[in-house]
């Protein structure tokens, strides 16, 4: 048995608070008796009754704190009295109650964090990304408008530390099944993908899922990574990681055409890859560029999906895309209902890559299409709001999203545009894409449904028929309910595809038969 006490001068505590401290002391193994109290005359008497006697107690004033302990060993007494400040410290408040405002606070709360998702305004994004990298975090940088020099510096810094910067302007990644940003609920599997564009990755991964296969990781690089200024720093890091990842059996690289210097370096890098690689650089075809035994270049996302599956199954699928006889029949039926003067396509896209890919399919079919984001400058619309002949509009473009929500989140801007297009007597086809998944609108089809029905009615009243062609990018695991979204479109008389490329192909068919 051992005892000890501490008197703290001029430290007043509420008696109920001290009782709580005392209860905690008594829970310490080996503590037999303890007293935590203010040195009032009554309390001094109590201390005497408990067996604590000491001249220090006699000298103490009512505003002095006394902590007295009797325990099995002197070590335990020492242990308790030596850590008095800790005992007097109240338990921290529940973590959820305090909101965090800074990255540093979050790092302190989650020291095991391994990733920062950053979606702050572009001018601040590099600073936060830098802090995240310094804190040992990989970075998913959703923010756009990050200066290219900052992007380069961040990626170089990340490379030194074996970290990665996905972005800036990175919409989607899937890391071991966890969807970052805008992503779909996709089955896990052996296909690894590296993509510069978010909707491109979504379209690819959803189609892999529909085909019954799965994704190991999908790594977004940001839209500029393969430009010559950046030189593919993130793409290289992602390639190396997927090469070393035991779950990944085939690697797909998706991008708009890279910068000329970077493209030749990339092709060499891909040819040297020990795992099979499919490259899809929308617009760069295998006819233009060499490929190797283990390396294939394709033109569309759908072909990339087929290519990856072919590697896994060892079975060739029919290349390139073709419509089925039923689809051709449907096209003919739709066209038969058009009125005189109806001849033009109007495509309103939420997904930038899907808009780009559609233009390539039209170009391949010899159809001239205008756009606010054209393949060639000569096909640029004079004003994004004014369609001309066949037009496809990227409604996720800055012009539409500055200060307003992206069409993937909110249907307002597309709804208005559908209404105004329907007033054009020459419109024959309305082409739309719907992107489901985490981060997207809870009801993408529902958001536009009124406008679609209204547009069809407007054209019908003019004595014609509006063909609505839609593609849905989504899986049966997505929160929006793929079956419900598809059902709504079918009910409204739309022709629905699960592939944006096939939807574009269907439109080409309609226009070719003209």
């Amino acid at each position, binding site marked *: 048995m051992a005892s000890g006490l501490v008197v703290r001068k001029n430290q*007043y*505590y*509420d008696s109920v*608070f001290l009782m709580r401290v005392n209860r905690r002391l008594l829970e310490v193994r080996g503590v037999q008796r303890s007293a935590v109290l203010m040195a009032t005359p009554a309390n001094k008497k109590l201390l005497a009754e408990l067996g604590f006697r000491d001249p220090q107690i006699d000298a103490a004033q009512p505003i002095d704190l006394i902590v007295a302990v009797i325990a099995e060993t002197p070590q335990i007494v020492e242990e308790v009295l030596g850590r008095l400040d800790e005992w007097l410290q109240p338990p921290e*408040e529940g973590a959820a109650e*305090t909101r965090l*405002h800074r990255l540093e*606070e979050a790092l302190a709360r989650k020291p095991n964090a391994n990733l920062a998702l950053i979606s702050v305004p572009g001018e601040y994004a590099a600073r936060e990304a830098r802090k995240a990298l310094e804190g040992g975090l990989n970075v998913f940088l959703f923010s756009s408008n990050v200066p290219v020099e900052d992007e380069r510096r961040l990626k170089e810094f990340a490379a030194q530390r074996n970290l990665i910067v996905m972005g800036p302007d990175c919409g989607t990644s899937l890391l071991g099944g966890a969807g970052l940003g805008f992503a779909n609920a996709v089955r896990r599997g052996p296909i690894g993908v590296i993509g510069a564009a978010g909707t491109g990755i979504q379209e690819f991964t959803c189609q892999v899922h529909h085909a019954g296969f799965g994704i190991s990781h999908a790594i977004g690089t940001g839209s500029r990574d393969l430009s010559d200024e950046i030189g593919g720093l993130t793409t290289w890091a992602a390639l190396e990681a997927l090469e070393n990842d035991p779950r990944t059996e085939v690697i797909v690289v998706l991008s708009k055409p890279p910068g000329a210097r970077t493209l030749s370096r990339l092709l060499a890098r891909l040819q040297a890859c020990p795992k099979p690689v499919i490259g899809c650089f929308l617009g760069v075809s295998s006819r233009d560029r060499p490929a190797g035994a283990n390396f294939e270049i394709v033109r569309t996302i759908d072909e990339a999906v087929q290519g990856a599956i072919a590697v896994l199954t060892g079975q060739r699928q029919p290349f390139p895309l073709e419509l089925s006889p039923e689809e051709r029949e449907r096209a003919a039926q739709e066209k038969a209902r058009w009125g005189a003067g109806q001849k033009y396509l109007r495509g309103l896209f939420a997904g930038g890559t899907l808009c780009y890919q559609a233009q390539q399919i039209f170009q391949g079919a010899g159809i001239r299409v205008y756009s606010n984001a054209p393949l060639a400058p000569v096909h640029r619309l004079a004003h994004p709001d004014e369609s001309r002949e066949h037009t496809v509009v990227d409604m996720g473009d800055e012009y539409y999203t500055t200060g307003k929500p992206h069409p993937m989140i909110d249907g307002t801007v597309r709804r208005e545009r559908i209404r105004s297009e329907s007033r054009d007597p020459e419109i024959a086809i309305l082409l739309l894409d719907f992107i489901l998944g985490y981060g997207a609108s809870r009801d993408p089809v529902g958001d536009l449904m009124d406008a679609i029905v209204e547009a069809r009615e407007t054209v019908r009243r003019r004595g014609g028929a509006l063909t609505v062609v839609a593609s849905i990018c989504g899986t049966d695991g997505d929160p929006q309910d793929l079956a419900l979204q598809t059902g709504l479109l079918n009910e409204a008389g739309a022709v629905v595809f699960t592939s944006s490329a096939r939807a574009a192909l269907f439109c080409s068919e309609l226009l070719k038969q003209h």
Partner: protein
Amino acid sequence: MDIRQEIEKANEEAVRRMVQGEPVLVDIAPAGEVIPGMEGKLVTHAGPPLPWKEMCGAMKGAIIGQVLYEGWAQSADEAVALLERGAIRLEPNHHHQTVGPMAGTISPSAPVWVVENRAFGNRAFCRQVESHQQFGNYSEEALQGLRMWRDLWAPTLRKALHHIGGLNLKPIITQALQMGDELHNRHSAASSLFANAMAVAMVEADLPRSELLPTLQYITQHNLIFLGLAMAAGKALADPAMNIPYSTIVTAMCRNGVEFGIRVSGLGEEWFTAPAPVVDGLYLPGYRAEDAGLDMGDSAITETVGWGAFTIGGAPGILSLVGGTPEEALAYSREMRKITAATHPVYRMPILGFAGIPIGIDIRKVVQTGISPIIDTAIAHKEPGHSIIGAGLVRAPLECFKKALIAFGRKYQLG
């Protein structure tokens, strides 16, 4: 050592000094007897320095009142003439180890609370708290309150205080914080505890009934009497934390109705100022927001040491000042933790699970987060001649903290 480590070390020291202070009321004496430099025709006032012609209405009214109270002039016009001529010196309280509520004016014959910090040996002073002259009302009736203080209440309390050899304020402050006071706008508990202590002392000191009774009435009915003590205590606690090289801790916040000023430990006695903000307030019957002057007073010394709006979560009695719900009040106290260096080991808020009050405002954190210190305060009229018109909440202007941070970077030679 890395500059960040220097700063952390310096801030730890600054907070240690603030936390270890032992404020004791040792005297109630005429300013001219105790305040260093309080000589001749000097009126000290709240906030950073400001020339007479730039002062706000309430401050001018209070200074006129102080001049009349001293008998340096016989009329308001005469007082103004003296002031315009510069015949009466005007200096900030803070330049004299002193603080004062609202206009905060002090002149040599006015008795002040004298609080000694027993841990460090420094003293600080604060004037009487009332709701008329310090708000700019210089009427005969308003000045009567100052004279009663000078001639009857202060001398009586002084005798009683001398009899008991001083009054330890720390236990009163600790208990009051746990009884629903935040020690800026609510002092109901602290004032009662103070009156209890002094009542016994006055009886023991065997004072004549003619002094005892009216003084007892004064201290038992004045539920803000402790504000003067809290402010003097706050100043006494904050001063030892001044002048610690590299420290980014705020050692004073004050306002003169035109400018808001702060001092920072590692930057010595320089003031970093910005225009005084508008108080978001509630008004007494007959007054409206249009009548209000801008933020004023040295009373933000209470927030500087972690009381006032920093601990308003513990003061349910004045919830109406912050919108009415306990959640809002608690949110302020939690928010202040984001810009402070520590929590106080003894001064605690039961409602936050006995968490210590946030203490040690760090200018780096203020600028980083954009969260400005919150202050609960009384409101004076924009024109001279009025008593208190309301009370409310105000944020210290971020600009002061930005200026201080830039000066810090310059002083310690950082890009």
